[in-house]
């Protein structure tokens, strides 16, 4: 049975997550969705609102989802899957998780990516962040959680556009600087085209999302490659997005060491990393890599390069990381590995 796609809706308190979700659940395209919401506080207001729909609702009952994610979320998702398999609930085709406004979405993604109890049955499809058109800028100023939510998202929905124009007040441009690869959609009263939120392979194995990240309009500061590692960048709210390029193939061990060092020393700063990597040992078959902080999907090997550009490209969204440091680190590790290979051959 094909894995069930999972989408995570995140966004700061009052940013319109539940309104968005409630509207989405009226869309026939999401008629067979199971929803997991997280109650935060004494009154499960979000739950009551969502409960009005006819969807499968599961209420987590132990506080913030990011704190209890390993237990409750995994157990809840597992329970849904088991009940679906047993035929005791409607055969849902998708799971949507709504986090609390204060949640860091990364631990939720980590649980979905790593827990062996559910990893084979689910596939992380997308992270959707809601940002309030009227209060969003102030929220980004005051709450680092909201910055991270927007930076880590695959799609950003600017809500309450009936109250404020996000283009006029600069919010859209700010979000673009924060996360240039994420399409920014607008919603008034929670109305948005669900086709633009779900599906489309944001975490897909074919590298389509990586190519989207690499699109010129997404990374205008990514300078032309000159056959070596190259990084460009743009900054916003302490978040930097840049592309590390390399014109020559990387040894698999160099790539592993590079990711290990990043995970070990700057996992929390490394919000997202997606890449197409030309691995020396597998010529003509690029590896798609995708990580959220220190947790990565297993690499997927493509049969062929998806476009004419056959260079390694790793797009990084990070908080407080210098692109030139990553460039130097990759160069240094590669030189070190090359030296060892050369020495081993001589021996």
């Amino acid at each position, binding site marked *: 049975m094909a894995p069930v796609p999972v989408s995570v809706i995140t966004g700061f308190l009052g940013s319109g997550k539940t309104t968005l979700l409630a509207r989405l659940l009226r869309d026939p395209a999401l008629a067979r969705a199971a929803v997991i919401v997280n109650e935060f506080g004494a009154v499960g207001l979000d739950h009551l609102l969502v409960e009005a729909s006819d969807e499968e609702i599961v209420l987590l009952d132990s506080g913030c989802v990011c704190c209890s994610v390993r237990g409750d979320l995994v157990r809840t998702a597992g329970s849904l899957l088991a009940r679906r398999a047993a035929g005791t609930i409607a055969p849902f085709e998708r799971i949507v998780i709504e986090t609390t406004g204060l949640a860091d979405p990364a631990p939720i993604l980590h649980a979905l990516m790593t827990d062996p109890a559910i990893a084979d049955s689910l596939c992380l499809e997308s992270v959707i962040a809601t940002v309030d058109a009227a209060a969003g800028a102030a929220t980004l100023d005051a709450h680092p959680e909201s910055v991270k939510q927007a930076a880590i998202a695959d799609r950003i929905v600017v809500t309450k556009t009936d109250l404020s124009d996000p283009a006029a007040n600069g919010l859209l441009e700010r979000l673009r600087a924060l996360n240039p690869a994420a399409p920014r959609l607008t919603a008034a009263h929670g109305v948005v085209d669900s086709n633009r939120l779900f599906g489309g392979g944001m975490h897909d194995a074919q590298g389509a999302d990586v190519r989207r990240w690499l699109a010129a309009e997404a990374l205008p500061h990514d300078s032309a490659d000159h056959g070596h590692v190259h990084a460009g960048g743009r900054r916003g709210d302490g978040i930097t997005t840049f592309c590390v390029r390399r014109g020559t193939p990387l040894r698999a061990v160099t790539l592993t060491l590079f990711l*290990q060092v990043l995970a070990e020393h700057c996992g929390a700063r490394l919000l997202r990393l997606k890449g197409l990597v030309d691995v020396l040992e597998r010529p003509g078959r690029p590896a798609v890599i995708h990580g959220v902080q220190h947790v990565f999907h297993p690499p997927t090997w493509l049969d062929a390069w998806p476009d004419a550009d056959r260079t390694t490209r790793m797009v990084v969204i990070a908080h407080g990381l210098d692109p030139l440091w990553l460039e130097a680190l990759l160069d240094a590790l590669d030189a070190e590995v090359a030296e060892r290979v050369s020495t081993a051959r001589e021996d």
Partner: protein
Amino acid sequence: MRNDAVWNARISRVLWGALEVWGVSGTVVPDPDDANVFVISPRTGPELRVRRDAAAGWAVTLRDPASGAEVGLGRHAGLAGLLRRLRDELAPEAPAGRLVIGAQQMPDRDAGAR
């Protein structure tokens, strides 16, 4: 690996960047007398010397601020081990993670991926 000016600048940048990531104030200066040595001087605490030897890898020594004597802290075959050692010495409270490869494959939306 050629220990030339390019290599020297690259390693300096790696070490500088690591200090920044760990939140350590200090300097990294190539030893003018030995191109294979980098001197790391944190704003507080003793100076560390990092020496690259093609055969033996990286050696880390601590210079006693009082006597000037050098104490070996260990050898590391590669840069990854060296950075781990330096973090342990210079910023033991800095967050330390580890690479996790999840159990979940990325969704395969057509037959091209293996």
